[in-house]
């Protein structure tokens, strides 16, 4: 054993593999494969929106390069940092579980939940309200007059709100999943012998991070 594994935490509910699985390793790898396939459907859902973005951007390049200036780069960068650190805390939670470090595992999970909440507060509390006030909104809700010199600026905000909104919905769902992990952690289910739920929620959470890695430069930066 290369690394220090703490002695089994005092109150652990030891995992018994489901009767339909011959071995816990298959249970883990089966769950992972199933989740990767689910992530493919997610990839295609977001992929359709990314293609729509590219298509409309090629139709109205000047609209995109002007409209993107209305988004806040500092807030976007801050949110990028928040999500990246939260991806790190998730892998550290898995690592802590594998080392039977339950307190550290719970600490990392709480940190992840807090960072996810921070992301939503920055988004809903600081980024969106000025847009509602100015009227830089999708389709018929668009009432802003500062972009009159470029064609169809409402398209940019349609894509912005749908794509970041769908992403934000994933963050909220992720917060629910991480809360569930915290519950399981307190219950004593997660330890060196069983951490499959953190692995799977981790895959989900990293995927949410992945989408943001592309949304951030496309909307906030690339003019």
């Amino acid at each position, binding site marked *: 054993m290369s690394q220090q594994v703490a002695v089994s935490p005092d109150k652990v509910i030891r995992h018994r593999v489901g009767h339909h699985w011959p071995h816990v390793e298959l249970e883990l790898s089966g769950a*992972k494969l199933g989740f990767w396939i689910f992530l493919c459907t997610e990839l295609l859902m977001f992929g359709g929106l990314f293609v729509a973005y590219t298509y409309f951007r090629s139709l109205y390049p000047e609209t995109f390069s002007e409209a993107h200036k209305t988004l806040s780069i500092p807030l976007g960068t801050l949110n990028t940092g928040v999500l990246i650190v939260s991806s790190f805390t998730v892998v550290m939670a898995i690592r802590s579980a594998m080392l039977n470090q339950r307190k550290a595992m719970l600490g990392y999970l709480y940190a992840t939940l807090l960072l996810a909440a921070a992301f939503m507060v920055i988004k809903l509390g600081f980024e969106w309200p000025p847009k509602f006030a100015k009227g830089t909104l999708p389709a018929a809700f668009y009432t802003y*007059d500062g972009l009159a010199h470029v064609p169809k600026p409402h398209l940019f905000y349609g894509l912005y709100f749908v794509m970041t909104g769908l992403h934000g919905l994933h963050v909220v769902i992720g917060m629910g999943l991480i809360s569930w992990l915290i519950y399981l952690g307190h219950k004593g289910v997660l330890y060196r012998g069983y951490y499959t739920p953190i692995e799977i929620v981790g895959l989900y959470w990293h995927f949410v991070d992945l989408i943001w890695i592309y949304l951030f430069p496309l909307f906030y930066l690339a003019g």
Partner: protein
Amino acid sequence: MAQHHHNDNPHELDHDPLPAKVYVGVLASLGLLTFITVWIAQFDFGVWTVPIAMLVATIKASLVIMYFMNLKQDGGMNAVAFFAGLFFLVIFAIPTLWDRETRDVLDPDRGGVVEHTRAGFPPQVNGTAPAAAEKAEAKEVAAE
């Protein structure tokens, strides 16, 4: 399973994690790449602006996929599933954008102009709809 790991206990996992410094290193790289992508956004590379931004994003995404999502170690069918999804997305994207970019060749008069919305909709964006404009005019005339 790419990991050939012998475990006699059918009920409990028994793996050693990667050293923490791997994850710290990935975190630091992601931070650095985020800084780079924000920093280079102030320069105008013309047609290369978006490809360069996407290149940096793809390096970041690869780090997340390989180390945080552990695809480098797990590999196997997980990688097949993921790259199949990516391939389907490419099949969707390439012909769509190919169509868009070759319209000028097929129809030199209208070129790349694609009208996706009628005049006057959404309001305030394309000016007032012809019918609404006439109504407003008629009202003004009536008021006079």
